[in-house]
């Protein structure tokens, strides 16, 4: 359903933010990322977070939408951490 | 833990400031704020009371951190005692002149 999509959006957002950080770049994309690209990734990440909020706000209204958005952001962040950990585990084996 | 003046007396003084003195001061502030909102700013008494209550939790928690974060324990106590005196005076004046529902 559409809220699963919202969580997926949030996860993608945090993965973008992670890619913009030097210490996670190797794990996620296998190499260092040039500064300009990293900045783009960071902007994309924040945009996706905002998009997630807009989506929930449109679906549920501003009050309930914000509450649900906060929960989904947290879940998206958790999923991103799981992905990063899984990738970092593979790269060190 | 790295702070140069963590003596027993210092920690005790800060604990007293952070908990009982804090509660006393915050209670005074909540009462004073409730009266200020109602008698001073025309907010209805029920909302004034509740607003003061909500604000007091913020004040208590922040003051507890401040009690351990500021460098001078003496200044901390002086400020707390001073504010307490001012708040008490204001509260007493307000109660004497206005009364309660």
């Amino acid at each position, binding site marked *: 359903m559409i*809220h699963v999509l919202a969580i997926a959006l949030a996860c993608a957002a*945090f993965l973008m*933010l*992670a890619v913009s*950080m030097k*210490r*996670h770049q190797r794990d996620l994309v296998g190499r260092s990322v040039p500064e300009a690209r990293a900045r783009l990734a960071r902007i994309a990440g924040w945009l996706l977070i905002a998009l997630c909020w807009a989506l929930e706000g449109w679906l549920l209204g501003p*009050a*309930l939408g914000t*509450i*649900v958005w*906060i*929960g*989904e952001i*947290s*879940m998206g*962040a*958790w999923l*991103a*951490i799981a992905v*990063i*950990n899984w990738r970092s585990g593979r790269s060190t084996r | *833990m*790295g*702070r140069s003046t963590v003596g027993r007396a210092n920690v005790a003084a800060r604990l007293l400031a952070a908990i009982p003195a804090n509660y006393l001061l*915050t*209670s*005074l502030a*909540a*009462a*004073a704020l*409730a*009266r200020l909102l*109602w008698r001073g700013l025309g*907010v*209805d*008494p*029920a*909302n*004034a*009371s*509740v*607003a*003061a*209550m*909500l604000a*007091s*939790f913020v004040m*208590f*928690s*922040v003051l*507890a*951190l401040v009690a*351990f*974060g500021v*460098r001078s324990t003496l200044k901390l106590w002086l400020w707390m005692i001073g504010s307490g005196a001012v708040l008490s005076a204001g*509260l007493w004046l307000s*109660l004497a002149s206005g009364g*309660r*529902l």
Partner: protein
Amino acid sequence: MKDSLRQSMALFHTWSGLLLGWLLFAMFATGTAAYFQDEITRWMQPEVTGSADPETSAQGAVRYLNQVAPDAVSWYITLPNGRSATTQVYWQPGDGTRGKRGETSAVLDQTGRAITVRETSGGFFLYRFHFDLHYMPVLWARYLVGIAAMFMLTAILSGIVTHKKIFADFFMLRFGKGQRSWLDAHNVTAVIALPFHLMITFTGLVTLASMYMPWGIAANYASPAVFQEQVFGREPAAERSGRAQPLVDLAPLMRAASAGWGGKQVGYISVTNPGDATARVLLTRSPGAAIAARGETAAFAGATGKALGGHTASGAALATESVMIGLHTGRFAQWGLRWLYFLSGIGGTIMVGSGLVLWTVKRRARLPDPARPHFGFRLVERLNIAAIPGLATGLAVYFLANRLLPGDLAQRADREIDSLFLAWLAVGLWGMVRPAGRAWTETLALAGACFAAVPVVNALTTSRGFAASIMNGDWLFVAFDVVMIALAASFLHAASKVAQHRAKKAAAPPRRTARKAVSQ
């Protein structure tokens, strides 16, 4: 400058988190469970099936109360909502006595018959425990819980100040690195759901604000009763007139009230002086129908059904308070958001638990003699075992007791609760007499085994086992079993990790200690 502030806040954070951390762990764990209290209650009364219509339930409740407490001062009826199937009633006896707990309350089905098939407190007990605790006067419990909540709030705030790399370490969750891993776990569970943790802690204080900070009200009101009247529209109860008059049918009143609230359902009914000419019926909007917790009310004369007007507390501060309470209890949440609440609560529980464990892990490395730690360390270590696998085992045993205790046992609901605490106590004591390392492995494994046993015992003792529930599309029972298995797996995994870690430490070459220097 900044460094010493970080250091002082780190010290503050450790102490404010540690001193009541064990209580906070229990509050978080049971509070998290409480988000599904209606579902847990349903699981614990498997004989009750289907859903209950509020109007029919109200009529049934009145029939029951007319039989059992016709002269009561007042009746209180909690109607079933979409998630619960039973009606809870409570009454204040007319002779002025206050009955013992359980004697003036009942749980009814929608026809108004008391459910005696498997007497249980269900999920409602877990909800009440998280702020009323147990075996103590609720006033003491609420003060203690309030103090703990304030410690929690200051712990969160000081944690934010002291966390050096809140952005840089946002995604760091390294496993197998000892102290660093525990710190990562503590940081990540804290930061990822930081808005939730701040909200839940602050709003928790707000739910009982007038107990903790009555001075705002006292400053403006000579007596709290005047405040209550202004805000909640509660009138003081009139005396019974002695003229008996039957109570009108509540269903039309409920429909009228609902219509006045734009279709929102009635959640609670209270009747004062039932059966008398002075009877008064107060209907309160269901808390599930809006984020704000304090529902609109509608009052009616009980003998005639005449509307007496309604009341909605208004104003920015009152609305804020009402919304804050609503956010804390989450009764407005539909099942998706409810799961988000639940998962965030689990995160918070892990945050508290990992903090408690981190304290011992950090200090174990610095012990001058690891074989003989100082008293404080030993105390914290043993309390950790009691708090974490102890409570977990207690919860699992609560569910097992529900399935295994005889249906006609006297005070069955209380005995179920006692089983929880007995199991908790037993694990706590075990953790004190065993060597600490082994105690962790054993108690974590026990918790895991007990959780794993719940679906098995359920399948063996009821007709609503996992397979049957899947085939019937009974997703509540399926989800319950899934959560039990997930908890079991987590605890068993933790037990095996501890055992592995200890085996590695034992196999590693012994550390050089100054005392054992061998002269060459």
